[in-house]
């Protein structure tokens, strides 16, 4: 039959079927137009129509009872297999039935797993399985269900396994209330930790589980976790590149939908789903799935159908909002790293997961986390000896171990000796160490202003090199001082501004000489002291290479088009100890930087981290290891991190709450100097008096919170920002009770919230998808939604949004497609967003009577002019008042005046009626005020104040 003819037949069939049965004969007679053969053909097919509905309407497998092994399910109960008396059916698992049995020879209870007949029949398959089983039997760990042996009796082959009592994790999760809630954090972490131990042991031996899922994890009544069913794992080859790998995990049946044959594959990694080679990183993915399910009660990638599920695995992110609010940010990050689709970018070492969990769980690194003493491990020799060459196996493992790269990254500071180099009151910072490790230079305000100090390690004597020139200023993100390549001079910048002119001053003091030129920053000399690298403060912050005196400067040519994007930054370049690379921090903004490297000759730069965090100082300590300072992605820190540039594994190397704001290493990498700071931020209250209040009038505003900033009153509530270990979230203090309104998951709030006048709703400025947005929610954090998504809110740290007294509007500083300005936003989306004023404006506040909005105009001479506008856009002339760049301004509750913070951090009152200003408070105590508010009774100012005590720490690494 020609395909043309067949198409004709098919076409007529479909057309005929579209006609009512009684019309078909007539239709076909006409359509076939005398072609009787065609007519007969079509009619013979249509004759089957009545049978077609019932035909193949249930998938084949569902009715194919006879296609499975000879014996019926559970048929062996009460019978014997060799020396095993079969007691009961435990279940049907990965490959077949599992029975509970008594080993008469050794007098113990065991589990017996029957293998499908295919194993007996096919010699190749059998041999391969025996090889695998040998490997698996070598696993001896309290958290792994032991394989005792592989035996054969009565034409059946079966595995003898350790009998594990208890329920599976799948059962434990299903036992919870519906809808699924997940397990308590503590329990989940304890289980997770033991799974990690099991996988770690397996991975160490090159064994990948490949099928980790809750059904394969058992929890004994003693709380010990046993990982089951490594039975399908295959020994991964030494280099991990062999294609002889399991191509997919066990697919288990799911009864969720009629006709589903291939059940959920929810724990498959993307590479498994794609049929690519898998390695231990597949287990890390699956571990992430299990951990996520323990926390939420749901699998992270769930679909209606298998293809749905796999589609989600390949393309979607898990629903992060399903994680309980109390999930620590570190745990969220851990999950994030487990669920990286590309295995190359995924967390690659399960041991690292263990370290993270210990940190979250508060377990000291050395402590044991196995809940009870390990169960005695039965000898395996009896069943294995006939066919296992143990010596061969041991040799193989040893050879594999030898070839295996050191994957577990040690903490390079693990055995280092920390000593305090300065312990002065006030601020020390920016510490740099000389190439030979003998001198330390840093900034300190010991003599009242920030000066450049130098000291020889061990001498105990400190020399102020800049006591007779103007103060230098802090400079947080960029290096503003350092040693020359020969260690004989120190360079520093004027005024602590990275692009300000630079000077070189001899180590012993003397007259500074100009160096490097304006606009160039952060010079670093090559290890052989022949060359210099620095960056230029201009578009893209290009890197330059020059000779040691900064002459002959030329940009490093980077051959990725658009790499140095407009507005992107490349900061603080440093040389690798072997001079082969230049490491630098790069990112589109200083809060979202990563560590990169490029050859000194240029070429393609390589990204080494995937942090998107505030990476600042870099300090290589050996050709492979880099220490650096960065905030965590949740905004906490800055902390000290290490990076293995070969594996690109990075980890935080310091614990505790001390912040690390700088790091520098000697040329041999054995001595490191860092700036450690301890910052406290709390709320204070000061009464509004007839006279200017003084320091003695200031009292702590007592809250049951170790940290508090950005206060805002609303109704009878006080809202403020605070952190529990991670980034700052929003808290509410109401009727003596403290509650967390909004949790910082992977971001940190820095703006005070806008609070509705009755205190029932709040709006926060939160960073999402790379831009700051207004998110409005009930005072208890529920019903959160993004408001005016088209507007990027301007974050200035002192207030960007304020609520109208009638509760219907929010005024916010931000920008839309037309540029920056102030916007009036209807809270209930009841109308369009309205542009009120255009320009780079900050901190709009709404007067209590609703008639006036006061905001900060563009900065003039370091001060912010206060400007007024009516809600309808009419400008209002205010007395000329200039406020400091911090703190912002707030109305008195009765609307008669406006309180603002001057540049010198004193509070002033603008009396709107009298158009006069007067000082309210003069503070002499040091500290930084970011934000304040007036108490609802109008009697006091509540303000936040940060105090920092920073010191220089010397870290000596073992030789």
């Amino acid at each position, binding site marked *: 039959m020609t395909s043309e003819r067949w198409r004709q037949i098919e076409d007529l069939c479909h057309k005929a079927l579209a006609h009512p049965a009684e019309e078909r004969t007539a239709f076909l007679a006409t359509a076939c137009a005398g072609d009787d053969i065609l007519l007969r053909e079509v009619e013979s097919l*249509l004759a089957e129509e009545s049978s077609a509905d*019932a035909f193949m309407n249930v*998938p084949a497998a569902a009715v194919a009872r006879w296609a499975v092994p000879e014996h019926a399910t559970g048929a062996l109960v009460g019978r014997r297999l060799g020396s095993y008396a079969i007691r009961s059916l435990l279940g049907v698992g990965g490959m077949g039935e599992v029975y509970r049995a008594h080993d008469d020879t050794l007098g113990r209870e065991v589990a017996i797993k029957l293998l499908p007949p295919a194993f007996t029949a096919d010699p190749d398959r059998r041999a391969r399985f025996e090889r695998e089983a040998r490997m698996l039997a070598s696993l001896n760990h309290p958290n792994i269900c032991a394989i005792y042996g592989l035996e054969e009796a009565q034409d059946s082959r079966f595995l003898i396994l350790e009998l594990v009592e208890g329920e599976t994790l799948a059962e434990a999760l299903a036992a919870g209330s519906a809808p699924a809630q997940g397990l308590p954090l503590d329990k989940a972490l304890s289980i997770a930790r033991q799974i990690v131990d099991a996988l770690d042991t397996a991975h160490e031996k090159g064994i990948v589980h490949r099928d980790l899922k809750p059904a394969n994890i058992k929890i004994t009544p003693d709380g010990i976790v046993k990982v089951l069913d490594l039975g399908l794992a295959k020994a991964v080859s030494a280099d991990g590149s062999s294609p002889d790998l399991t*191509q997919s995990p066990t697919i288990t049946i799911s009864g969720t939908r009629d006709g589903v044959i291939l059940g959920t594959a929810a724990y498959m990694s993307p590479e498994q789903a794609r049929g690519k080679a898998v390695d231990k990183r597949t287990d890390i993915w699956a571990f992430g799935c299990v951990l996520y399910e323990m926390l939420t009660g749901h699998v992270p990638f769930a679909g209606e159908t298998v293809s749905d599920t796999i589609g989600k695995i390949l393309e979607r992110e898990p629903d992060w909002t399903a994680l309980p609010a109390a999930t620590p940010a570190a745990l969220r990050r851990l999950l994030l790293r487990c669920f990286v689709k590309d295995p190359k970018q995924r967390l690659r070492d399960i041991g690292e997961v263990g370290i993270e969990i210990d940190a979250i769980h508060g377990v000291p690194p050395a402590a044991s986390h196995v809940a009870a003493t390990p169960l005695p491990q039965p000898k395996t020799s009896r069943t294995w000896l006939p066919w296992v060459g143990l010596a061969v196996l041991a040799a193989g493992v040893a050879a594999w171990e030898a070839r295996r790269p050191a994957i577990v990254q040690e903490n390079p500071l693990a055995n280092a000796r920390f000593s305090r180099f300065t312990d002065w009151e006030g601020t020390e910072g920016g510490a740099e160490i000389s190439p030979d490790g003998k001198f330390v230079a840093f900034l300190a305000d010991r003599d009242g202003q920030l000066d450049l100090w130098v000291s020889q390690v061990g001498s105990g004597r400190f020399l102020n090199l800049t006591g007779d020139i103007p103060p230098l200023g802090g400079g947080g993100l960029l290096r503003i001082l350092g040693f020359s390549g020969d260690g004989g001079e120190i360079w520093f910048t004027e005024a602590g501004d990275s692009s300000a002119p630079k000077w070189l001053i001899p180590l012993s003091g003397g007259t500074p000489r100009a160096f490097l030129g304006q606009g160039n920053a952060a010079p670093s000399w090559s290890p052989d002291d022949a060359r210099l690298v620095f960056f230029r403060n201009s578009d893209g912050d290009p890197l330059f290479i020059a000779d040691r005196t900064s002459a002959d400067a030329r940009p490093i040519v980077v051959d990725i088009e658009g790499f140095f994007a407009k507005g992107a930054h490349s900061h603080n370049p440093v040389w690798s100890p072997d001079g082969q690379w230049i490491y630098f921090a790069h990112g589109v903004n200083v809060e979202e930087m990563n560590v990169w490297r490029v050859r000194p000759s240029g070429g393609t730069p390589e990204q080494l981290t995937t942090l998107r965090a505030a990476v600042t100082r870099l300090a290589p300590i050996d050709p492979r290891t880099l220490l650096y300072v960065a905030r965590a992605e949740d905004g906490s820190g800055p902390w000290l991190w290490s990076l293995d540039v070969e594996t690109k594994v990075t980890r935080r190397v310091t614990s505790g709450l001390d912040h690390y704001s700088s790091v520098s290493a000697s040329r041999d990498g054995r001595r490191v100097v860092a700036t450690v700071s301890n910052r406290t931020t709390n709320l204070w209250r000061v009464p509004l008096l007839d006279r200017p209040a003084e320091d003695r009038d200031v009292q702590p505003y007592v809250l049951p919170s170790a940290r508090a900033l950005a206060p805002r009153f609303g109704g009878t509530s006080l809202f403020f920002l605070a952190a529990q270990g991670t980034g700052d979230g929003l808290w509410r203090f109401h009727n003596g009770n403290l509650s967390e309104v909004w949790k910082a998951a992977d971001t940190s709030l820095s703006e005070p919230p806008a609070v509705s006048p009755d205190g029932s709703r709040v709006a926060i400025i939160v960073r999402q998808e790379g831009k700051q947005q207004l998110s409005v929610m009930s005072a208890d954090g529920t019903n959160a939604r993004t408001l005016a998504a088209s507007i990027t809110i301007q974050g200035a740290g002192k207030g960007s949004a304020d609520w109208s007294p009638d509760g219907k509007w929010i005024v916010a500083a931000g920008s839309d497609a037309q540029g920056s300005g102030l916007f009036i936003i209807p809270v209930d989306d009841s109308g369009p967003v309205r542009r009120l004023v255009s320009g780079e404006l900050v901190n709009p506040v709404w007067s209590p009577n609703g008639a006036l909005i006061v905001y900060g105009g563009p900065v003039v001479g370091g001060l912010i002019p206060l400007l007024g506008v009516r809600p309808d856009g009419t400008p209002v002339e205010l007395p000329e008042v200039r406020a400091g760049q911090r703190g912002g301004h707030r109305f008195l509750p009765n609307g008669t005046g406006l309180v603002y913070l001057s540049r010198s951090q004193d509070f002033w009152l603008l009396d709107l009626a009298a158009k006069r200003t007067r000082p309210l408070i003069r503070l002499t105590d040091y500290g930084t005020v970011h934000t304040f508010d007036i108490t609802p009774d109008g009697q006091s100012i509540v303000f936040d104040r940060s105090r920092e005590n920073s010191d220089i720490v010397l870290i000596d690494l073992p030789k």
Partner: protein
Amino acid sequence: MKGERTGHTLQATALVNEVYLRLIEIDHVQWQNRAHFFAMAARLMRRILVDAARSRGYLKRGGGVTMVSLDDALVVSNEPGEDLVALDDALTALAAVDSRKSDVVEMRFFGGLTIEETAEALDVSRDTVKRDWTMAKLWLLRELRGVEHDDV
């Protein structure tokens, strides 16, 4: 299989595991995509079921096809092996006429895929799968019934 006796589910599990074990034996195969994976799984399912049926002696009798109680046999019979062997042959014959229709049957009936999944696997529209499915059933039923027809 929801609501069916537990026995069915357990057997289906064993069957699926058999498919799995065969899949993992296909070394060096790089699945092009998930559709490819399911197509392969469906083909394996067909092969396993038919092999099992053949091995149990459900050989096609005689040269012709003498089927009984076809209307419901494939659906409810506990011994559908005979039908399955015949269906396999009929399907092979269909593949010679229209291989895509044979693929549709393989995926829908042996692989248990939905219309949508089959459409995705074959990269055709859902309507095409529906039409193919209808046409293939008519053709196979006629073939199985042993109705004489013209090989035009």
